[in-house]
């Protein structure tokens, strides 16, 4: 574990004592790192560990406060992304910067010198994409492409600059398992050509699978440098988190209780040109059950949540039922009054208002369901601050929300702590039905396990829980039943024990259940 603590002088890229301060906050604190030629180097760490800040300094987006960067042994100042590209550093960001209305070739042209003709770019891009096994049609419009294909555009765009180092930021977070496999093959090919890859991830399995060395960050400091293949997932997790993460106790699948949440042939037209339409979605969640809906982002998860929560009611009143009552046309508060709770995906600006304190964010979700406790003065609707504040304290204590001060602004909490509060806000009511979209997205491992355990406990106490998630590890940890959403269609739910990653992956790709059965029979 100590073999690489001092960066070697012959490294392609070496970093010594790199520090970035934002005011009094130190995002990166004396980072040492060395990347050799022809290696895939993993940068591991939880959200907020300083990975993105480090990478932004390497790519010239942020200027370091202290320390130095050595490129092939000479100190360099990387003042801009353009300068980074000139040195030979390419970057594929986690959030793509593509124009949906333009074609693939046009998008690539935007990042190159203006002098090069579009047809030449298209030819080169097509040739490159064939060579690296990244099939791509240069004339296709980005809006029509899947997330995996969009990522290929970003990779091809980086490769066109012929870089010696490519930085990939959480590349598999948006891919199906099969798409991820294809990406790994591309990375192997890059390595065999002597190029280096800096691979940022918090997924231990894939890091162990493809990376030669790993640097682990926690709270802006390097906490480990190792060969990931010689470590266990548990030892890597310990370096990332600093302590062992509690395992979620699993819930046994029991015989079905009453149906508490039901969608029957729910169809919703797309609200905007880039939204997904829901097509004939049917599901039933029984009391004591956790139904998890897997799927790659942007396949109708948000739209399904909107229809189930009543934020956007649907025309057919019978197509959604909560505790057997048809609620399709009812708004979100009327559904809450029937005993349902909702946790949307986006914390800031949807589940919570960042600029308001936690107590106000409690009123946000529960002004009607807890009208008696929180409001006074009849039609005046006076908010009873003391009652709200004591409920805020109760929820914070119950969910172990770590905060500065008694009632801080929601925006000042870390993602994990805010998410614990948002989930706790619903759990505090003991809802009979809970619908959660991406419960632990961008949340640190400790908070994630706390939230998952809370969902399992809620189902065990007899509530029906629907979890929409992109994270397969999470799904297998909590679900009693699993369905997959793809392009607005939902597969038939199956018991979790009968599902495998491969099956889910195929369903994510849009194959129906029957196809998947046939395919897996074929494979055996």
């Amino acid at each position, binding site marked *: 574990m100590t073999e690489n603590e001092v960066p070697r002088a012959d490294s392609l890229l070496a970093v010594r004592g790199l520090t970035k301060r934002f005011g009094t906050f130190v995002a990166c604190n004396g980072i040492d790192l060395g990347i050799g030629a022809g290696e895939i180097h993993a940068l591991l760490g939880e959200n907020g560990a300083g990975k993105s800040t480090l990478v932004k300094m390497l790519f010239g987006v942020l200027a370091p406060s202290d320390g130095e960067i050595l490129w092939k042994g000479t*100190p360099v100042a990387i003042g801009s992304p353009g300068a980074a590209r000139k040195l030979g550093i390419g970057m594929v960001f986690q959030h793509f910067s593509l124009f949906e209305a333009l074609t693939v070739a046009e998008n690539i042209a935007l990042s190159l010198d203006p002098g090069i003709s579009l047809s030449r770019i298209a030819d080169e891009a097509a040739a490159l994409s064939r060579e690296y096994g990244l099939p791509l049609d240069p004339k296709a419009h980005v809006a029509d492409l899947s997330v995996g294909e969009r990522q290929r555009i970003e990779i091809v765009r980086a490769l066109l600059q012929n870089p010696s180092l490519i930085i990939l930021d959480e590349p598999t977070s948006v891919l199906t398992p099969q798409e991820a496999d294809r990406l790994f093959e591309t990375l192997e090919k890059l390595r065999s050509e002597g190029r280096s890859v800096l691979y940022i991830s918090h997924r231990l399995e894939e890091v162990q699978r493809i990376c030669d060395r790993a640097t682990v960050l926690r709270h802006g400091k390097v906490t480990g440098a190792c060969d990931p293949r010689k470590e266990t997932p548990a030892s890597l997790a310990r370096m990332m988190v600093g302590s062992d993460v509690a395992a979620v106790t699993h819930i046994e699948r029991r015989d079905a209780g009453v149906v508490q949440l039901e969608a029957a042939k729910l169809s919703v037209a797309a609200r905007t040109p880039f939204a997904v339409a829901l097509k004939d979605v049917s599901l039933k969640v029984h009391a004591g059950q956790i139904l998890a809906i897997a799927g790659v982002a942007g396949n109708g998860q948000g739209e399904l949540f909107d229809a189930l929560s009543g934020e956007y009611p649907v025309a057919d009143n019978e197509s959604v039922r909560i505790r057997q009552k048809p609620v399709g046309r009812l708004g979100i*508060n009327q559904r809450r009054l029937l005993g349902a709770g909702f946790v949307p995906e986006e914390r800031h600006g*949807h589940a919570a208002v960042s600029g308001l304190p936690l107590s106000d964010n409690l009123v946000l979700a529960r002004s009607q369901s807890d009208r008696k406790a929180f409001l006074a*003065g009849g039609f005046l*609707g006076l908010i009873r601050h003391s009652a709200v504040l004591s409920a805020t304290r109760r929820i914070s204590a119950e969910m172990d929300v770590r905060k500065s001060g008694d009632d801080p602004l929601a925006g000042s909490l870390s993602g994990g702590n805010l998410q614990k509060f948002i989930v706790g806000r619903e759990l505090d009511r003991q809802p009979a039905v809970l619908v959660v979209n991406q419960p632990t997205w961008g949340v640190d491992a400790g908070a994630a396990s706390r939230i998952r355990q809370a969902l399992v406990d809620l189902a065990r106490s007899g509530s029906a829980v629907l979890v929409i998630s992109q994270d397969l590890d999470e799904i297998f940890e909590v679900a009693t039943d699993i369905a997959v959403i793809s392009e607005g269609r939902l597969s038939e739910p199956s018991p979790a024990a009968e599902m495998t990653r491969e099956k889910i992956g195929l369903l994510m790709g849009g194959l129906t259940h029957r196809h998947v059965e046939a395919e897996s029979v074929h494979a055996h």
Partner: protein
Amino acid sequence: MRIELEKRAGASRLFSFLSPLLALLLTVIFGGIMFALLGKDPIHALHSFFIEPLLEVWSLHELAIKAGPLILIAVGLSVCYRSNNWNIGAEGQYVMGAIAGSILPVVFFEWNSPLILPLMLIMGAIGGALYAGIPALLKAHFNTNEILTSLMLVYIAQLFLDWLVRGAWRNPQGMNFPETRSFAPEAVLPPIMEASGRAHWSFVFALIAAVAVWFMMHYTLKGFEVTVLGQSPRAGRFAGFSSRKMIWFSMLLSGGLAGFAGISEVSGSIGHLQPIISPGYGFTAIIVAFLGRLNPLGIIASGLVLALTYLGGEAAQLSIGVSDKVTRVFQGLLLFFVLSCDTLIHYKVRLVFDRVRQKIEGAA
């Protein structure tokens, strides 16, 4: 070297408080420079602009007269702006309120009753609210930009008033002056303290409105709804609040208050309708609202400050002989500096010396 704006972790309380004061100071400094460039002694000019109007009791009454409509309108606008509805047309709603409120004393001039004044005030508020209902309707149902529609409706209201006082409503005994007949004594809003000056009840109404709206914003669910929908419509939808209803609520409230201000001014200060009934109160109130941090209690203070710029302009015209356009200059300077100083609430200004690059260039 370059100047960088660095985002603060949270809004700075110190600068939330200091920013309007800093803006005021900068306005005075630049106003002084302007007077100096005009060839006047800046100290003397500033004194007659800002201090002299405060030295006499009658002049304080004038200050209250000017502050009344500014505060009434700005309080309504603060609810609009907090809920992210950009009503720029308060001037038009003010005019329409004045017209609607004047129906009784002008058209039914023979009807006299103690009820007439309250009815006039109510009709004025309704007139302003209905006029603000036009941009509200357009925004709620056709997603029209309310900044444009409310602003354009100002000119329609002003020209409608002009047409009325020159045509249908012109005083038959008025020697062809473009004026309506004078309001009967029962239709005139009485002064608060008649012995010392003209200030009438509109200033008291303004204070009541400010306190009431402040209470609503701080203690009621409705105020919470305004804040949430203004900061994040999506979170508002999650809470079960309706953005569409909020457009109606905020526009009707601010239109109603502007209309109330209009009829109060006509009834209390002018006594009849004429082509021009406002020195731009509806627009100046936008500055008042922002200078008061969109807080109704802050708006009371900022309303008095802006009222002073009107008086100061008049005084400067008399005593140092500059155009009363300096009022507009001061108001413009103030709005500009308020908005720029507000940057300091969320950002720190830093001078960055590019140390790393210099070191490398030095070594090379």
